[in-house]
């Protein structure tokens, strides 16, 4: 059914996953992402896939863990409070070197917060995949098309690095409708990875999926193996886009829905005679540090815009390593800044 359709971000995540090869979904209802499990419950069984409504997010991520251990392409989706509950499972997946995809349609927090758009799970996504030395590879779409594309691509990426991948979106992207170009649904590979349990045991050594390593030297080796994969991902999976002036006075950094707002703001500032350039990281881990540093050294003026009290801004500051000051503009609790407000700030900085 490769056609252009007007769909929500939730539907784009669900269909994008199926198109990318996902055939197994385990989830638990939470607003604003409920349309994803609903879509999966309708579509997966009709193509021979697995849909299970788990008893909790804790169970859902552990079902993904079990499914992934068999080599199956599996996912779960949730929103902020539910992702908190999945941290334990994510840590086990990282430690056991298992792939899997998690979509987080971020809502306002902390606590039960609200169901409005927020980007306050940046740390949770990029640092907070549970305890221990491990992280989720994290990608942040800024349009419905990108939700669809990135969710699909997340599956092979997660298999390649044997690490969970998180798609970090928000309540706007979850509910907003945009035209989206769909492509044919790809089947996952028939052949199971050599480490998978449950099939073909008669013709191989037994496989053990495990994250327990009592000997510190062995665990250190495992953690280095994982770290080397992250280093490889930094080389191969770092993604960003750039938009705006070639000789900018101001560098603007934003991701996801904030970048959407900043794109308009940069255009308005240009109309007012102030040149600015927007760098929008698509991969948040690995982070496009080099390009941000290069541009920051040229402009010496950097504005970071995000829907939180200041989380993503820390990665920008780490990238710039003190080469120049970084100004921060954030809204929190589900409130969203307008393009006019951002444009005003850009103009004031010039």
């Amino acid at each position, binding site marked *: 059914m490769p056609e252009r359709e007007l769909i929500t971000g939730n539907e784009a995540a669900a269909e994008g996953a199926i198109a990318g090869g996902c055939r197994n979904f385990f989830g638990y209802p939470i607003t604003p992402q409920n349309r994803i499990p609903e879509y999966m419950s309708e579509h997966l069984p009709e193509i021979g896939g697995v849909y299970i409504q788990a008893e909790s997010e804790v169970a859902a991520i552990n079902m993904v863990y079990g499914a992934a251990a068999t080599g199956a392409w599996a996912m779960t989706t949730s929103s902020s409070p539910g992702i908190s509950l999945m941290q334990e499972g994510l840590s086990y997946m990282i430690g056991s070197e298992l792939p899997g995809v998690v979509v987080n349609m971020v809502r306002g927090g902390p606590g039960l917060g609200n169901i409005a758009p927020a980007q306050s799970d940046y740390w949770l996504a990029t640092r907070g995949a549970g305890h221990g030395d491990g992280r989720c590879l994290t990608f942040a779409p800024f349009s419905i098309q990108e939700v669809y594309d990135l969710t699909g691509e997340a599956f092979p990426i997660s298999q390649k690095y044997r690490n969970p991948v998180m798609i970090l979106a928000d309540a706007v992207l979850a509910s907003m409708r945009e035209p989206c170009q769909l492509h044919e649904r790809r089947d996952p590979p028939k052949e199971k990875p050599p480490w998978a349990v449950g*099939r073909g045991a008669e013709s191989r050594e037994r496989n053990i999926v495990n994250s327990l390593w009592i000997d510190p030297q062995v665990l250190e080796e495992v953690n280095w193996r994982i770290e080397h994969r992250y280093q490889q991902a930094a080389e191969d999976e770092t993604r960003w886009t750039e938009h705006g002036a070639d000789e900018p006075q101001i560098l603007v950094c934003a991701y996801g829905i904030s970048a959407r707002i900043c794109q308009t703001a940069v255009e308005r500032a240009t109309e007012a005679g102030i040149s600015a350039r927007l760098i929008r990281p698509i991969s948040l881990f690995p982070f496009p540090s080099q390009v941000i540093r290069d541009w920051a050294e040229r402009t010496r003026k950097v504005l970071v815009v995000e829907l939180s009290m200041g989380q993503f801004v820390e990665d920008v500051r780490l990238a710039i390593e003190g080469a120049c000051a970084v100004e921060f503009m954030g809204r929190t609790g589900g409130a969203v800044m307008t393009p006019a407000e951002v444009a005003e700030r850009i103009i004031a900085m010039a």
Partner: protein
Amino acid sequence: MKKQRIAAGVQSLLTEEATCLATTEAREPIYTRPDSLTDTPMRFCPGCTHGIAHRLIAEVLDELGIKQRTVAIATVGCSVFAYEFFDTDAVQAAHGRGPAVATGIKRCEPDTIVFTYQGDGDLAAIGLAEVMHAAARAENFTVIFINNAVFGMTQGQMAPTTLMGQKTTTTPRGRSIEQGGFPLNVCELLAQIPGVAYLERGTMTSPKYVRQAKRSVKKAFQTQMDGLGFSLVELVSSCPTWWHMKPLEALKWIEEVMLEQYPLKVFVDKLEAGE
């Protein structure tokens, strides 16, 4: 004089052993390690019944011919190293999450035989939701539930299954209603759930009970092979170390005290019912 007697004794023992060895070589062994166990020596405390439970499961996997398609799920507690002892594919699960992990495996690979091996802390405390809902969904896998009324691995704290008045490291004056509430009878809870296809409580305190326990483990796996739904065998087990008892005293305590709270019973048997 004493030294001579000892020397003679030792000599006679050595001769006896040599004779034994010669005889063993000549005969078919009547008692060997099951194929489904690895050669890794078990590290359980003396007198603990985990070793017997492992052996029973392994014998059943051998007898049903399902070793090659079995995935064992090791959980958290003294059960944590199960993947070292069962010579099958294995997955280690987070504390209490075994039934959720088993669900993921079995749903994606329905031809595999999946079992979790869980203690009372893992299953009845932190993992109660997972086991109840797996049963409610009639998930077609098997749970072996080791109930020894304490958290063994973490050094003997109160478990949900700790008996009233039982002293543990966190109920130093004995479990009381005020401090720890009442023991949880897992089989009695699960028996209410229609998704359960086989449910039995056994123990391993005597050869008779060991044989019964093996029969129930075998029926649980057969239930799974027949696709009848959720199966669970609770094995009332000993923990001499944290009960501060000698092994034989511990077995006696099971029979005389624990079985009062946890009576041996077949709760559900859809295999027998021919469903």
